[in-house]
């Protein structure tokens, strides 16, 4: 029971952090619940599919199918997150204004919601496929799904969902005028971390070999195998032994998102002059 609980919790926890942030980012947007739920459902379905074809997926691209798949979906999530931030920089204010008028923001907000629903789906798919494979392995070893496994799985899922809820609750207490800045920053860091992780997959497939030496090692302060290390890995892309290319891509992702947000931002209205 315990190993199942630990693994299920760990994976749901990682996906839950992302879902929690996205729930907070979209708080107040009409129909966001349906989009996020749709993302979760699509992710669970995708996870089962990926888990079922892990063997076949691995054999593709000279044995690098899994790495290319992971790098690909992470790259796509980075684009969605970046696009969301830029879109919000442009339309965030009008959206906030419209939201007060009932339902007016539905159409405007749905594009951005779709992008975030994709991110939810990808997060759930990535963590979920590991859960499915692990559970399948436990069931195979024990000759069937036992009661212990079911109990462990349900408790793990519940605890992971609790993290999602706490992340969301923790973020929405932030006053509205700061919320946009906070969530934009979180989304940008999330994107940069995912980009760096995509690089790690390309490096392990030897598709990318330039600048692949480890730059520093902070595992003595915080190991990325620890629970805090894992949380920070998911949230801001913390890696205790990053490669040069990972650092470059991380910084570049943050820079590009920040620059695009500035470029596309609505110029602020001229300040009324003091008499």
């Amino acid at each position, binding site marked *: 029971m315990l*190993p199942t609980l630990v*693994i299920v919790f760990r994976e749901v926890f990682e996906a839950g952090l992302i879902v929690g942030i996205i729930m907070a980012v979209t708080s107040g947007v009409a129909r966001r619940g349906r989009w996020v739920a749709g993302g979760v459902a699509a992710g669970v379905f995708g996870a089962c599919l990926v888990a079922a*074809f*892990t*063997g*076949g*997926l*691995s*054999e*593709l*691209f*000279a*044995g*690098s199918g*899994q*790495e290319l798949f992971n790098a690909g979906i992470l790259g796509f999530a980075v684009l969605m997150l970046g696009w969301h931030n830029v879109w919000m920089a442009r339309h965030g204010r009008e959206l906030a204004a419209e939201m007060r008028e009932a339902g007016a923001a539905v159409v405007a907000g749905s594009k951005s919601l779709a992008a975030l629903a994709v991110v939810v789906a990808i997060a759930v798919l990535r963590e979920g*496929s*590991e859960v499915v*494979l*692990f559970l*399948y*392995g*436990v069931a*195979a*070893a024990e000759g069937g799904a036992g009661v212990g496994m079911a109990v462990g799985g349900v408790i793990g899922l519940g605890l992971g969902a609790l993290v999602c809820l706490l992340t969301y609750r923790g973020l929405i207490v932030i006053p509205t005028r700061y919320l946009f800045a906070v969530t934009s920053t979180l989304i940008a860091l999330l994107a940069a971390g995912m980009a760096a992780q995509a690089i*790690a997959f390309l*490096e*392990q*497939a*030897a*598709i990318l*070999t330039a600048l*692949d*030496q*480890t730059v520093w*090692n902070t*595992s003595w302060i915080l*190991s*990325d*195998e620890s629970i805090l290390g894992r949380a920070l890995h998911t949230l801001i892309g913390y*890696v*205790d*032994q990053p*490669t040069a290319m990972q650092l470059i891509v991380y910084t570049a992702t943050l820079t590009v998102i920040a620059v695009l947000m500035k470029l596309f931002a609505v110029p602020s209205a001229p300040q009324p002059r003091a008499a």
Partner: protein
Amino acid sequence: MTRDMLTRLGPTLVSLTLALGVGAARAEDAVTLSLTIKDHQFEPAEVHAPAAKPIIFAVKNLGAGAAEFESGALHFEKVIAAGGEALIHVPPQQPGRYKFFDDFHRATEGFLVVP
């Protein structure tokens, strides 16, 4: 059915990858280290490789369930299905002792030693 499609599609994609010259130069002088995972044990539990040479782990999972072959220090994580085999590329390493493990069963550990 889909699995068949995947395996049939495989060679085409492989040649495409090779045509692009992806990772080809590196693989030539790499050291291949063969490992198996069985009953939640790496066999051998300690492998050796020379410094400053690229390394390829060839890992066979002979266990009943999937394993996630992972190492923070060596920068990889790869799910290996039960009965599956995986190749993991690792860039040249400095002398040291590097841990790898099965992330689904954390007690399953092994080490790469670079003298």
